[in-house]
């Protein structure tokens, strides 16, 4: 393990032979010190920039931290090491791989994510998407399911690399899932994801617009919704009790029947329920396959109303019966519940919220080894659908999920193919074969010894089948970065008493 404290980072533009040396732990000449004041030159096409570090002991190896390669060179780079130096492959399991476009804006080897105060809203949306996909209540959703969502991929990318277009993220998300999952699970999952995507797309664009302020070109169609949510955020910052009034104003021309929002605080819960039903009925009467401006506005208002229907307290159960047809109501509700909130370490969503927010806002540390199993770019080169285990070259060592870096630092969880699971099991280090002891005097023991290899194989298969679950990772998996190296405790620790509500 390299201790990077107080050490200088070296930068080398390496040709292939120099790269072989560096990746093998040998120093090469011609390196410069890497710092934010003396930024390295962009590697020439065909060469690779390497940020590396060396310990103080002369015997310490040179430790590559980041490889900088042009997009068109990545295929050769990854393919070459997989075939010629497979002991170093996959490269992205142990070192970062970036294109110059991602490296050049960096001031240091640590990149701090920024969602412009919208992290709670993003988290709500991610939790909503996980719950909608799993068709389960939030209480049973696990962090790995959240990290497997499109919303997480988009939110995290937005936090680290704001200029990456949303379409690129979605494309990478789809391809990564297709590479890692079996065809049947992809087909099954894709239909659900695609259906949900149609509903979530305007929400992502809105949230990206809100997270990036004026730095992003906004769809004029979504402008009233962005304005409404900005007004809501301001009202919450100002502790304005009439926040619904601020929310409705940019939207009232689109949804004239919602003018009663102006007096929402005076409406009893039962009256709010009737207003919610009216909005849902209006949604149903709005024609068209794709979300229109009015339909989006109706969904925003219905979602908001679900958060305050019970006289200011949420009533998300109102959205549940409509989750199949109008998932955007649930998504908006969960998102709107986080607007204006900056404290994201409380136990929202039964403690899930802070874990999602933590992953959204986790700094990308290029001075430490990656926390993914491999990167999307490398998987795109090394995954081979023609092989019985398409992921064989990626050397998967996870039980059910892999963590794939869609972009540097944007790690998503993906359930892996059956073949990969079996492949991973086969590639387990050889267990020492149990040497049959000679039971000369005990024929039953001798018989048990003779049977043992057969029983052991079946037991292993059975245990693996018990571990396999559905398509979506609703249970916390050891593949999630949070879980690595941890053991699940055997019993639930006694919790402090919950606070019974005292309204």
């Amino acid at each position: 393990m390299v201790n990077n404290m107080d050490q200088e980072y070296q930068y080398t533009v390496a040709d292939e032979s120099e790269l072989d040396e560096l990746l093998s732990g040998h120093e090469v000449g011609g390196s410069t010190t890497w710092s934010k004041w003396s930024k390295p030159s962009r590697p020439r096409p065909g060469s690779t920039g390497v940020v590396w570090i060396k310990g103080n002991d002369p015997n310490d190896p040179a430790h590559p931290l980041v490889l900088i390669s042009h997009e068109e060179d990545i295929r050769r780079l990854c393919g070459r090491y997989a075939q010629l130096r497979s002991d170093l492959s996959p490269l992205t399991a142990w070192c970062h791989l970036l294109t110059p476009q991602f490296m050049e804006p960096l001031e240091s080897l640590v990149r701090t994510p920024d969602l412009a105060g919208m992290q709670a809203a993003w988290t709500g949306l991610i939790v909503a998407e996980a719950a909608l996909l799993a068709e389960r209540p939030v209480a049973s959703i696990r962090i790995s399911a959240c990290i497997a969502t499109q919303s997480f991929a988009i939110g995290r990318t937005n936090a680290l690399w704001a200029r990456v277009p949303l379409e690129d993220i979605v494309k990478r998300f789809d391809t990564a899932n297709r590479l890692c999952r079996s065809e049947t699970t992809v087909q099954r999952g894709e239909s659900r994801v695609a259906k949900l995507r149609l509903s979530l797309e305007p929400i992502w664009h809105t949230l990206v617009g809100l997270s990036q302020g004026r730095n992003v070109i906004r769809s004029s169609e979504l402008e009233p919704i962005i304005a409404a949510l900005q007004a809501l955020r301001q009202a919450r910052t100002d502790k304005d009790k009439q926040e619904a009034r601020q929310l409705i104003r940019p939207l009232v021309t689109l949804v004239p029947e919602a003018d009663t929002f102006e007096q929402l605080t005076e409406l009893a819960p039962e009256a709010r329920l009737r207003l919610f039903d009216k909005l849902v009925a209006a949604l149903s009467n709005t024609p068209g396959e794709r979300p229109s401006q009015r339909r989006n506005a109706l969904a925003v208002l219905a979602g908001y109303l679900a958060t305050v229907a019970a006289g200011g307290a949420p009533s998300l159960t109102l959205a549940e019966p409509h989750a199949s047809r109008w998932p955007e109501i649930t998504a908006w509700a969960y998102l709107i519940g986080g607007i204006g909130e900056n404290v994201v370490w409380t136990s929202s969503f039964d403690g899930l919220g802070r874990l999602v927010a933590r992953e959204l806002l986790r700094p990308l540390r290029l001075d430490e080894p990656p926390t993914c199993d491999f990167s999307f770019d490398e998987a795109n080169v090394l995954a081979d659908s023609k092989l019985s285990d398409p992921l064989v070259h990626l050397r998967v060592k996870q039980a059910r999920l892999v963590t794939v870096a869609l972009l540097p630092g944007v790690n998503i969880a993906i359930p892996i193919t059956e073949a990969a699971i079996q492949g991973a099991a086969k590639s387990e280090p050889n267990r020492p074969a149990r040497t049959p002891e000679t039971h000369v005097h005990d024929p039953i023991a001798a018989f048990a010894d003779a049977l043992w290899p057969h029983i052991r194989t079946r037991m292993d298969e059975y245990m693996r089948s018990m571990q396999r679950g559905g398509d979506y990772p609703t249970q916390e998996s050891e593949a999630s970065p949070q879980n690595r190296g941890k053991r699940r405790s055997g019993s639930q620790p006694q919790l402090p008493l919950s606070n019974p509500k005292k309204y």
Partner: protein
Amino acid sequence: MSLWWVQREQLDPHQIALIENLPLRESFLILGPPGSGKTNVLVRRAQFVRGQNMPNVLLLTFTRPLTEFVKTGCFDAQNREIFPQNCVTTLESWQRSLYAQHGQALPVVAAGPNYLTEWKRALAVGALGFFGQHRLPPYDALFIDEAQDLLPEEVDLIAQWSPVLFFGGDDRQRIYENTEGLSAVRRIVPTSHERVLSFHYRVAPEICEVADRILLPQGGVSLASTAHYNGPRPARVSIPRQPLPKDRQLEMTIGKLKEQVRVYGDLIRQGDRIGVIVARKSDRDVVFGALENDPDLQGMAKIIRAREDRNDNYNPSIDSGAPICILTVKGCKGLEFRAVHWLFADELSHYHNPEHYYTVVTRAKTSLDISYTNTLPQILARAHSEAGVTPW
């Protein structure tokens, strides 16, 4: 205010002090208005004491419905047990178990006008000799809710079984006749060990105002003035200006219940209930039948009562799948509901004293609907008038 991220501060500094700052091995009496968190403090204090190497605790409540209600607080929103529910029982069940464990038959009491009180007294008196037999160890601490309804003999018995007693009570919520209120408790708990919870959080100000017109504020401090309610708004009190036939009252209630189970869906999942209160036991069945006949409410209601006798197979536990609780005026003691519907409110009104009305009204947190068949009881008539309506 954002919704999921800010945990509402549920305990005020006074409540926190009662839970963790009082000396562990001394007795206390906690007083406070409805919704001030007495029961909550008792449960939390019991859990705190258990963690301080005093594991043998018992929380005694008065009625079976209240026991079942407190037991729902032994689980968090995800139904995980966070306080042992078998450490909560009714006073009577506990006494019966003492008889059983000491091999003694229960006392026999002749029927009479004060049968219930006499039965309770005989039960307590008969158990007074058990502790001296040294068959069972004393409790590390006993916690007793609704102490205003204890008989002096019951207080004596409780005091035998633990040197550490923690009572919660409110004289204005006394339901049972012929008790001494809190006087008996005060004989064993010194005045210096009385603590008062001044503020309450459960009951909306609109409902507090009705309660304040039923029982005059003590010491000039009204329920409304001490309300720190931060629940759903606006709250609502509704009493029709005219009597309604019983079936019409039921019909209107069913319509409102349908809306309330939907709009309070999240709060119901977190443990809230809706109460339908009637005076007569027979009317509980009438209401239950009407709700069961409605396709939208079928299976959502449960009659909450005590077991009648040993052969009664009724399960008294509060069912999370049946958020509508149907119960009698006496049965609602100590419970709380997001919305309360008091039907046929003029039934048995001659048996009801101001404390009864006060208790029923203050069971409601946000919404209170009262309807009647012939004449609105005077005490309710003077407690509320529909706002904005010119009577004549």
